């Protein structure tokens, strides 16, 4: 076979194998989730890595590089996948990268403890025509089970280099680097799986029909035909346009004929043939002492407790409670520090204005508008950072998969996915990271649904409002009142899930199908790097929007020139007066409430701040002012409204980023209407009961 038949493989970056100094070599790392892929990636690239997102999707993309003999090798960490079919977002990303960007080669991480499943992916890589190095990762599990693998035999049968590494100890990494460096000069793999007489005949017939010229140059027509047979009909765009109709007809006929002949579907048949081959390969290459086969591992013993039928749920709730304690016990004092920092900054700006004789509106814009507005959101950064750290621990330790398992049945009854529980729990802290956490859901509809219900979880910002009103109106039942609002939020989330599931997102819940990875001790360095990246995104995206909104609000509370700041005569005061009658049926038809709700869209705790500015000259004054404006019933209605109505801008922005404007608008509009309805209902019913 000729090794360099596809000049497109490295594009304009140079001819493969010319060994010219400084040429960039691009190699992807592929492997199953939890196969030790990131450990190998870290061992290869050390600190030279960047984290970003794959274009257009919210799957994280890690890239790094290392120097080897004067060559710069770029390593792209593909999302962990079990196959290259396009079932999940991760698989699509991996597949598109390999086909469209055609890296110079692929390092396939193979977990020695489950060779067959790991090789299922390798087999697909080879079929795609990629130059592959197999990195046999000797995990602790494989070792403890006494598994031995004949790497030579594996290399001979598949026709690719095999290197054994223990990435955690760094052994085998130098050899892997050498193989990666040499890979561009290696010929294309000659591997070809025999699918059996009937299927091979069909493949030959269809391949002839496709012809030789498929684009891009990195793929082969045999691979394309197999993809089409597996049902990935979208791949037909690789074929010349004039042949497509004929090919589709031939495909339909072939698939129907063979399925009738076998009595089972094509996809299963192809997978079965692959697994049959891999089983044979496994028999050939793997040795394991019979007494160690099927012996329960340490993870199994831990799971007997952690996921047991009786203790699984209580332990999960305990873990979540603990996570919350961490987020708030450690995060809140730090948040206080940030808050004081911003207050200091504000005072500095005002002082500087005095010293520099700058116009007063400049310092007011900076201090009251920008610093105050942005500060009130960035205050939550410590909580969010710790939240991400805690989630990182849950993810990396392997517990997250168990949480989904123990909650699956309950969530299923609600029309939600087992994994939806995690974003919902996080929503009690802050909805922004909670919405980002919905990425872990594979099915688009499950993801959308979870994103829509997350804002009904009472986040820590709403707690600020509850605390103020509960203390003012229900001093003897504060805890109960606040708790009832948390319950109301959950109830509405469940109701919303039901409504949207039956109208807009009609589809059965995608069943939870996940692997329980063995438990790991997380690595602190990776946890910190990850949490920093995720919270950095929060600062950038939320910060820009909030800054704009804060300035706008400031301007509206000042204009027109000459009227008192934040009085009824200002633009915002007039808007409040205009809106107030809308809220009259809910019992709070005063302009101050309307303005504070409007301002609360910037961030929900701004509701309290605005009320303070508008009608309270000091904390004691605010309470008595509130008593003049609200009755206990209308106060409760107002709290319910604050919980339910349009989520804050940061949340809407997060929803937009994870979905699109239409869903963000739907979420904002739906919750506004729902909030109004619930508030009116509470006030009207409450009045009947009280009087």
């Amino acid at each position, binding site marked *: 076979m000729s090794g360099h038949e596809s000049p497109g493989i490295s594009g304009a970056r140079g001819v493969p194998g010319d060994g010219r100094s400084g040429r960039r070599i691009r190699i992807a790392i592929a492997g199953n989730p939890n196969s030790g892929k990131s450990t190998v990636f870290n061992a290869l690239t050390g600190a030279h890595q960047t984290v970003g997102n794959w274009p257009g999707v919210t799957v994280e993309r890690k890239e790094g590089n290392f120097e080897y003999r004067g060559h710069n090798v770029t390593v792209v960490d593909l999302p962990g*996948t*079990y*196959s290259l*079919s396009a*079932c*999940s977002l991760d698989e699509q990303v991996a597949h598109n990268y390999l086909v469209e960007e055609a890296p110079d080669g692929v390092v396939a991480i193979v*977990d020695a*403890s*489950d060779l*067959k*499943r790991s090789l*299922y*992916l390798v087999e697909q890589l080879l079929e795609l025509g990629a130059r592959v190095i197999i990195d046999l990762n000797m995990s602790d*599990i*494989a070792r403890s*089970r006494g598994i031995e693998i004949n790497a030579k035999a594996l290399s001979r049968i598949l026709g690719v280099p095999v290197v054994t590494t223990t990435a955690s100890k760094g052994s085998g990494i130098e050899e892997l680097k050498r193989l990666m460096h040499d890979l561009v000069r290696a010929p294309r793999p000659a591997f070809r799986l025999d699918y059996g007489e009937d299927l091979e005949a069909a493949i030959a017939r269809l391949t002839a029909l496709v012809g030789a010229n498929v684009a891009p140059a990195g793929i082969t027509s045999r691979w394309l035909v197999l993809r089409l047979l597996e*049902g990935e009909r979208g791949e037909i765009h690789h074929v010349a346009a004039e042949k497509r109709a004929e090919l589709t007809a031939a495909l339909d006929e072939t698939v129907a004929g063979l399925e009738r002949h076998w009595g*089972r*579907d094509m*996809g*299963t048949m192809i*997978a*079965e043939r692959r*697994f*049959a081959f*891999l*089983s*044979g390969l*496994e*028999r050939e290459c793997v040795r*394991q002492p*019979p007494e160690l*086969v*099927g012996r329960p591992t340490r*993870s*199994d013993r831990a*799971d007997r407790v952690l*996921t*047991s*039928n009786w203790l699984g749920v209580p332990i999960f709730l305990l873990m979540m409670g603990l996570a919350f304690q961490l987020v708030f016990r450690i995060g809140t004092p730090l948040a206080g520090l940030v808050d004081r920092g911003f207050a200091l900054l504000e005072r500095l700006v005002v002082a500087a204005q005095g010293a520099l004789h700058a116009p007063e509106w400049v310092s007011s814009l900076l201090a009251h508008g920008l610093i105050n507005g942005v500060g009130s959101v960035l205050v939550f950064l410590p909580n969010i950072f710790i939240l991400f750290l805690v989630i990182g621990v849950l993810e990396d330790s392997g517990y997250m*998969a168990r949480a*989904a*398992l123990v909650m*699956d*049945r309950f969530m*299923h009854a609600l029309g939600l*996915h*087992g994994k939806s529980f995690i974003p919902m729990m996080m929503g009690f802290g802050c909805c922004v990271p909670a919405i980002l956490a919905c990425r872990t859901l594979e099915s688009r509809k499950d993801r959308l649904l979870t994103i829509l219900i997350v804002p009904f979880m009472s986040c820590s910002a709403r707690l600020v409002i509850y605390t103020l009103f509960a203390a003012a109106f229900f001093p003897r039942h504060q805890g109960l009142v606040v708790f009832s609002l948390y319950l109301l939020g959950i109830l509405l989330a469940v109701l919303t899930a039901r409504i949207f599931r039956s109208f807009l997102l009609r589809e*059965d*819940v*995608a*069943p*939870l*199908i*996940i*692997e*329980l990875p063995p438990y790991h001790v997380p690595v602190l360095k990776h946890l910190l790097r990850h949490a920093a990246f995720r919270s950095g995104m929060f600062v950038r995206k939320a910060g820009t929007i909030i800054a704009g909104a804060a300035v706008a609000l400031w301007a509206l509370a000042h204009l027109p020139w000459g009227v008192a700041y934040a009085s009824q005569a200002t633009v915002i005061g007039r808007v409040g007066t205009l809106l107030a009658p809308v809220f009259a049926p809910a019992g709070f038809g005063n302009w101050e409430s309307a303005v504070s709700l409007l301002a609360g869209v910037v961030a929900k705790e701004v509701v309290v701040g605005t009320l303070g500015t508008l009608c309270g000259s000091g904390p004691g004054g605010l309470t008595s002012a509130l008593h003049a404006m609200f009755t206990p019933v209308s106060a409760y209605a107002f709290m319910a409204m604050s919980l339910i109505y349009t989520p804050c801008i940061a949340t809407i922005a997060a929803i937009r980023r994870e979905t699109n404007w239409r869903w963000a608008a739907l979420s904002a509009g739906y919750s506004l209407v729902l909030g109004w309805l619930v508030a009116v209902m509470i006030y009207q019913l409450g009045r009947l009961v009280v009087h």
Partner: protein
Amino acid sequence: MPLAEARVGMRARVCEIRAGRAIKGRLLGLGLVPGVEVRVVRRTRRGPVVVAREGCRIVLGTGMGERIIVEEQLENPDRAGPGQ
């Protein structure tokens, strides 16, 4: 029998998977194809089932247990794969 009715600890051979292409694809990736032998690790009434296939533990969420048809394997002479 459906996997949902298998008892914990049972060795079972997968006979049939009644599901759409997307779900089947995910199961295939995890090595669950007809012919493969699994051990039932955890099962709850009408809840998820956990099976062990060689080294890996796979969660099959609520509702999946009814869609996977298995037969009990009484003898288990060696760990040879399903073959053909």
